[in-house]
């Protein structure tokens, strides 16, 4: 049946096209120029369409920036993110200026100089001065951007464990979930390798390494606000990427090596949840979810849960069939709340001895 329908659809489509071309052929008065080379009439129409097109394009751009304003990520929840956002804003403004100018010129010229038989084009093959100008301007602008970008980059990527009192956390990725390993009281992660994976030792910690005994393994990432955290990332199987968009942070997780990224969270989950942006955003999302739920309930399915905002970490490097659902909740909280939470978690050593006593 479906095959038949498909064939019918294709056939109808073919007929449509055939008829369309027939109309096109009929619309030409016989004897008129049918050389299939553009004549003045075509040039006139197409030139005007160019102008219409660029106006439509401007409208599309304006529409996107206004309508999708709520898509932009909220203010950064990390210290370096502020610099990131500033650089992004500068670059964005710059490229939009160039975009509007060049697209305007391109399409306007296409309209203005649309061909007419009696017109003569200007033989204008070279102008060193002009070319010098539009080589040197991008050079200067880009030099500025490069220098600014590189300073920011060095700041972000220069990870110094001895500066201040950073929290050391391991992010452990595997198909298709994340684990966090806190370094414990000594703030030093125990050695690990996938070859040690056995039973409850799912992260492959080296049991003989004393530093590992007080490590705490969790499936939620809790971070104290305003304290620098250094992530050491390890993968069990394939490439993953730890993407934390609200903190402007991302680093690939590579089997066989340890990759690093560091940032200082500045806004707690609570603060972010109560920000004007997020209240509005979550309200919109819940409205959408409510409507979807209505349909689901009607079809006999469960309704969707109401959404409350939480930071999340997601996998951003294709890693297998469930790549789309490899996430971990991130909670940024006050130092006290963090301390209280971490105290409740059992250490790796405790887990081992608990198992041994069983």
């Amino acid at each position: 049946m479906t095959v038949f329908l498909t064939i019918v659809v294709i056939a109808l489509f073919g007929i449509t096209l055939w008829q369309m071309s027939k109309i096109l052929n009929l619309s030409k008065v016989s004897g008129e120029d049918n050389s299939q080379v553009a004549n003045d009439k075509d040039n006139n129409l197409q030139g005007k369409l160019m102008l219409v097109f660029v106006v439509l394009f401007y409208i599309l751009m304006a529409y996107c920036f206004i309508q999708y304003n709520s898509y932009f990520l909220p203010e950064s929840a990390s210290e370096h993110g502020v610099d990131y956002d500033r650089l992004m804003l500068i670059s964005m403004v710059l490229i939009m200026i160039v975009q509007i100018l060049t697209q305007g010129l391109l399409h306007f010229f296409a309209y203005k100089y649309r061909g007419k038989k009696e017109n003569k084009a200007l033989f204008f093959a070279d102008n060193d001065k002009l070319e010098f100008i539009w080589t040197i301007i991008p050079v200067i602008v880009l030099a500025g951007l490069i220098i600014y970008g590189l300073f920011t980059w060095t700041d972000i990527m220069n990870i110094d464990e001895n500066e201040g009192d950073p929290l050391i956390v391991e992010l452990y990725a595997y198909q298709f979930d994340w684990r966090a390993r806190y370094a414990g009281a000594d703030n030093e992660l125990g050695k690990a390798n996938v070859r040690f994976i056995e039973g409850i030792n799912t992260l492959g910690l080296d049991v003989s390494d004393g530093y590992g005994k007080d490590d705490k393994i969790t499936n939620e990432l809790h971070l104290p606000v305003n304290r620098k955290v250094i992530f050491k990332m390890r993968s069990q199987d394939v490439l993953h990427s730890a993407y934390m968009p609200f903190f402007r942070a991302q680093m690939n997780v590579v089997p066989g090596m340890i990759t690093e990224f560091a940032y200082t969270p500045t806004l707690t989950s609570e603060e972010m949840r109560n920000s004007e942006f997020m209240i509005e955003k979550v309200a919109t999302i819940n409205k959408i979810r409510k409507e979807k739920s209505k349909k689901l309930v009607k079809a006999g399915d469960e309704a969707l849960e109401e959404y409350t905002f939480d930071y999340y970490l997601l996998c951003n490097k294709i890693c297998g069939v469930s790549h789309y659902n490899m996430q971990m909740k991130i909670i940024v909280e006050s130092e006290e709340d963090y301390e209280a939470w971490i105290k409740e978690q059992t250490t790796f050593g405790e887990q081992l001895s608990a198992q041994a006593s069983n």
Partner: protein
Amino acid sequence: MSAIANVHDHAEDHAHDHGHHHKETFITKYIFSEDHKMISKQYLITGLIMGIIGIAMSLLFRMQIAWPDHKFTAYEVLLGKFGEDGVMDPGIYLALVTIHGTIMVFFVLTAGLSGTFSNLLIPLQIGARDMASGFLNMVSYWLFFLSSIIMILSLFAEAGPASAGWTIYPPLSALPQAIGGSGTGMTLWLVSMAIFIASSLLGSLNYVVTVINLRTKGMSMTRMPLTIWAFFVTAIIGVVSFPVLLSAALLLIMDRSFGTSFYLSDIYIQGEVLHNQGGSPVLFEHLFWFLGHPEVYIVLLPALGITSEIIATNSRKPIFGYRAMVASILAIAFLSTIVWGHHMFVSGMNPFLGSVFTFTTLLIAIPSAVKSFNYITTLWKGNLQFNPGMLFSVGLVSTFITGGLTGIILGDSTLDINVHDTYFVVAHFHLVMGISALYGLFAGVYHWFPKMYGKMMNKNLGYAHFWITAIGAYGVFFPMHFVGMAGLPRRYYTNSNFPYFDDLADTNVLITVFAFIAAFAQLIFLYNFIISIFYGKKAEQNPWNSNTLEWTTPVKATHGNWPGELPIVHRWPYDYSKTNEDGEYVIAGQDYVPQTVPLQEGEEEMHH
């Protein structure tokens, strides 16, 4: 010098041999042809068929992104067991994305675009009887054909085709335990690509040799049309970078089949520790992108070359800044081989390397900007003839600018951190290399169709094709930037596991609708293409009043291109609307001066 002269003599002897023809059979003429014009048509048609498959795949996965909860019988019909009950399997979703990328980048835009027009135009525009080696040229096409067949066959692999993304990063691509597609599907993918690379190398070497050795008398390097410059430089980039992809693939094959550890280390999968130790996936990324980035320009430069030629011809003006255009092509080619690291800012490589690659990457914006400005200036005070090829060329400049500008964000290591691998990237590269190169392909087909088939394509259908495509393309890819800025990762089977993305759903539907509109427009093109081959209006010898040599050949193509002597070149190809001091055209009543016309009395040659 004498060596070159000898070559010319040979070429002419050769032509005389062919003057009294031996009868060609169907097989030597249409199948195992050594004639560059026939081979170019073979490339084009194979490329178009692959393009249909690639675009159809994109429609399927766009449907899944737009309506993740919906069941479609189309999945059941087209995907078989991977679309049971109308639900798309997440594995096949990744496979569709992977093969779409592979087909579009390599089979359509590399072979279909560069293969078609390098073959067609290099001999015709430099005044040669054929390619330096017709036989190698034929082998090159048939290897391409073979690799296409293997790629298509891989779609029917039991556990699914390759599905690790078109970049096939190991370990995902190396381990069948990690994803079904990394079994037979991946093996076939690698075999197909290895053959493709061999094909591409044979083709490229042939192009380079032909351009260097077989230019006709008077065709100095600075009198070559920009198309030839672009094809020439593209071929050089291909020769430099494709072998590296071959070694990357070879090492991957060894890791997969012979237990080596080039890319694998410390892996525990499916309850088992693998023996591999000491390899690094980052090494693969370096090797892959050493080709992967130049590949962008292998795709784009021919399109830019085609555009340069078409814009000049249809503006009835010389291309503005010929020297700067050539210099830009060379600069882009050089820089393109030292920017690959910008795909790897967050790969775990040393951040200092990231700084270097940011620097070189943003440098490449300079020649690109020069090219854009030169195109715009070429339009200024022209007498624009809006043939379909011209529309697509203007469209290319537009998408090249839009897509290129966001490159300034992605090329900046800092800014890349948060948009890396999101839909922002997808929007960027589709505009700057996908759509732009496709526009170049279409522009070329409309412009040189009379040369390929001796017929004209219908211009009204061409106009409809352009405008619907232009609206569809921006409708798909402009809003996509914003979806990416929301932090939505690419290659997600569904976004519904993150309620935060719920408000993006409407935009994803909009994008899919535009994708269908744009795909529909391609049917108009196909119809026009096929119908025009058979029923198109007969073409005149020089329908666009162009200066280049290919329009001095007879409409009915002959083996050897020119029936008599080879043409002699007296000037550069851009003497459009050139006037004498008294303001009259150099040739009275004609606004163009073909390259074969000697300098007129009192006329000065352009010193470009």
